[in-house]
């Protein structure tokens, strides 16, 4: 069962037993959880005629006692306080409270205390505490994502909150799947270790009754890893549809905000929805590369034009009748075609303006092939090129630095200097900070395929064979990790078990949680892996969904804090 289905089931169950006109009250996080899997028209079918945020409910005094209130909120102390006030001055006839994660007894006590008018009919925990964008990919949309890069001493309470939120999210995923996993973590990451241990404590000690599910023959696996083990993937430019949209424009909760581009005519749609559940064209094209998408869109436009032409050619009464019958579908098709055409057009414009074909070729070479000298030449040329934007220059130098960290330090220094002189907004030392965080000493996995003999051989073979598409030759480190798990060869040294957990044989379900965020390239990798029927189902999750802009933002924020911290004595 996919994650999208799980959240939908929760919402369906929540609404089905409550009859009459309802108002659904959400908080800023659950609104994302719900909006991404449930549509407004489906809510209307379930007689939910008003959706409000928990903040704005208190603002009005209008009594709507003919409505029943259904709350779906996170069990935070702020929400409980707001509920206290709202229960003491109830506006609605009945109150049904659903919390998206575990409630503490004290919180229940507080709520019971404020329910003087006894309007609360039920209090339940429905664990829909994650954003399920695709069936095998979830995110927690966390705001202060950069905290994982900092040592605990810098902001202990912040890191504790961060870790708590992650543990809550992971727990909700496993409760929704009704499984209790064996837990492993990446040894080199303190944050991953902490999260793995706290999750184990929650699942096996604190709430062991709740998590005591029917055992299957092999326990599922939870693997907690750190983004910094693969800093290359978020820095690369993407060429497959979903990843590309996120990289160039930005995809938030499966919505694209075209206002960010600012070059659209007035009557164009401002925001569009890209959801594999609702859009058949997107579902079949989300993992295809840009060239193939272009062809498929052209085909779609041709089909649509044929339909449009036949609609204009109305001669008999039958034609008229048929036109009116098919009008809603025609309108829907028209909307869909125009949405995809707009997106692809805008992305083509951006590719052209930023010379991304040129830049991306070098990026892919840096990520996949060898040759330090040639790489240095290529990067220098692009740094000198006027039409390359600042962020692309920064990315190129970072990729070079990550790969050739130890080779030819003189040339590396020259690149740093050139970057600083070319890009006025460049924060000094950001590349060095990245190396400190994710340099070759910090990484566990064989990111560039040059540590392990087997990987070196594989790379050489691939180089000889040639690649189908230069722009999509990179494979994220996650692919190797998944392969190791499939073969049962994930090294204990690198990825130890928590406590005395142990796994016999191969797991059949694996949840990989990446602290620091995932990318759509990685979710594509997981989806393709799942479709190979290897007998193992992978689910990927992270604290956020990154593109290069977001990753760099997190880096900058972490650098700023660590700098200001080091100045404090």
């Amino acid at each position, binding site marked *: 069962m996919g994650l999208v289905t799980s959240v939908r089931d929760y919402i369906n169950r929540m609404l089905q037993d409550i009859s009459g006109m309802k108002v659904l009250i959400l908080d800023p996080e659950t609104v994302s959880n719900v909006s991404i899997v449930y549509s407004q028209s489906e809510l209307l079918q379930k*007689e939910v005629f008003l959706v409000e945020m928990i903040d704005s409910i208190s603002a009005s005094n209008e009594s709507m006692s*003919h409505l029943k209130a259904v709350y779906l909120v996170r069990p935070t102390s702020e929400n409980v306080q707001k509920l206290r006030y709202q229960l003491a001055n109830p506006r609605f006839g009945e109150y049904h409270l659903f919390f998206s994660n575990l409630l503490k007894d004290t919180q*229940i006590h507080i709520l019971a205390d404020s329910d003087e008018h006894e309007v609360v009919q039920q209090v339940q925990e429905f664990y829909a505490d994650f954003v399920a964008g695709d069936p095998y990919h979830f995110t927690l949309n966390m705001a202060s994502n950069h905290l994982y890069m900092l040592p605990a001493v810098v902001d202990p309470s912040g890191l504790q909150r961060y870790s708590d939120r992650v543990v809550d999210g992971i727990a909700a995923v496993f409760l929704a799947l009704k499984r209790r996993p064996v837990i492993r973590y990446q040894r080199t990451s303190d944050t991953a270790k902490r999260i793995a241990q706290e999750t184990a404590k929650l699942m096996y000690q604190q709430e062991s009754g709740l998590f005591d599910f029917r055992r299957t023959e092999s326990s599922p696996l939870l693997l907690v890893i750190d983004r910094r083990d693969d800093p290359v993937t978020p820095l690369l430019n993407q060429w497959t549809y979903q990843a590309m949209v996120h990289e160039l424009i930005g995809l938030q909760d499966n919505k694209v905000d075209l206002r960010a581009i600012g070059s659209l005519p007035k009557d164009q749609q401002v925001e569009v929805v890209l959801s594999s559940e609702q859009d058949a064209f997107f579902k079949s094209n989300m993992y295809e590369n840009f060239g193939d998408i272009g062809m498929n869109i052209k085909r779609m436009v041709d089909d649509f034009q044929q339909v449009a032409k036949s609609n204009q050619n109305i001669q008999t*009464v039958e034609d008229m009748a048929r036109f009116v019958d098919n009008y809603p579908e025609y309108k829907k098709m028209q909307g869909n075609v125009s949405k995809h055409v707009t997106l692809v057009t805008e992305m083509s414009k951006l590719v052209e303006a930023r010379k991304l074909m040129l830049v991306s070729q070098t990026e892919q070479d840096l990520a996949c092939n060898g040759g330090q000298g040639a790489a240095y030449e290529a990067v220098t040329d692009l740094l000198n090129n006027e039409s390359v934007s600042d962020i692309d220059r920064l990315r190129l130098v970072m990729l070079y630095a990550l790969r050739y960290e130890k080779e030819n330090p003189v040339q590396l220094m020259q690149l740093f200097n050139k970057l600083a002189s070319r890009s006025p907004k460049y924060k000094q030392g950001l590349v060095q900070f990245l190396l400190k965080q994710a340099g070759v000493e910090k990484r566990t996995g064989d990111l560039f395929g040059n540590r392990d003999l087997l990987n070196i051989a594989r790379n050489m073979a691939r180089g000889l064979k040639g690649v189908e598409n230069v722009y999509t030759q990179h494979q994220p480190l996650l692919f190797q990790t998944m392969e190791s798990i499939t073969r049962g060869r994930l090294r204990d040294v690198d990825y130890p078990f928590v406590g005395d957990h142990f796994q016999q044989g191969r797991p059949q379900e694996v949840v990989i949680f990446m602290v620091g965020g995932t990318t759509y390239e990685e979710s594509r990798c997981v989806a393709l892996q799942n479709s190979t029927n290897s007998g193992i189902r992978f689910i990927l999750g992270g604290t956020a969904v990154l593109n290069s802009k977001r990753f760099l933002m997190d880096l900058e924020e972490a650098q700023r804090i660590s700098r200001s911290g080091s100045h404090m004595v």
Partner: protein
Amino acid sequence: MATRNRTLLFRKYRNSLRSVRAPMTDSKSGVGPVIEMASSSLLHPKRSYAPVSTEDPGSSRGGAVTVGLPPDWVDVSEEISVNIQRARTKMAELGKAHAKALMPTFGDGKEDQHQIESLTQEITFLLRKSEKQLQKLSAAGPSEDSNVRKNVQRSLATDLQFLSMELRKKQSTYLKRLRLQKEDGGDLEMNLNGSSSRADDDDFDDILFSEHQMSKIKKSEAISVEREKEIQQVVESVNELAQIMKDLSALVIDQGTIVDRIDYNIQNVASTVEDGLKQLQKAERTQRNGGMVMCASVLVILCFIMIVLLILKEIFL
């Protein structure tokens, strides 16, 4: 998927705290008879419509807040949903009548036709009436109540549109099948006539030959008249459907678009309702200042003056 019910624990705490608060609740007992909403749903199509019951809820609720009377527009929406339900049952009947009419019978089939026509008319009437009432649900003012009204309107509009489309589909399949049948039957008759005329041609004179011709012509005339009537029907129903769809399309949500997203609706509710209010005010102003209103009033005044003059003329002459 796992869930956990905390209601028991909650009730336990609430009851224990209630005994602490007991002296307060006695003073706040029931505020007179209050109508409690029935448990069956208001607008759910599958459940039957049950009347509201009058009960004294003093025993179940110890406080001052009780379920009050819903606002007036809820009655309108209830009426619409009842009509929609009625239309739905009639559509089922219509389906059966269609099937019966299509079965080969020896009788004239006029009775079936009549029934089908009357059912179709009733359904169309119900749909039109519901659609007109739907417009009444529109509200002005950026209140939460207006959002609820708008959403109720949208939900009913979707149901109406779905029913209209279904009616159209049923009609068109029925007509298609009917035409096929008639053609087959007509062909059969034509063939019979043709073969008999060929056989008789050699035997009989021109008089009889022309008789056959006349009968053939009469038959084809009858068929074309019927054809015309059918086409007329189709045109009418297409027209009506187009009208309904045009009116409803403003209300119905396009699935899969941004308008169908819950988060989008929450953000935009405040701004669109304000915009709508401004538009309405502007429209009102332009209409008041409009030249049309001026012309109309001037004309009316002139008419009155003319009538007065006429009367005066009659009196003094």
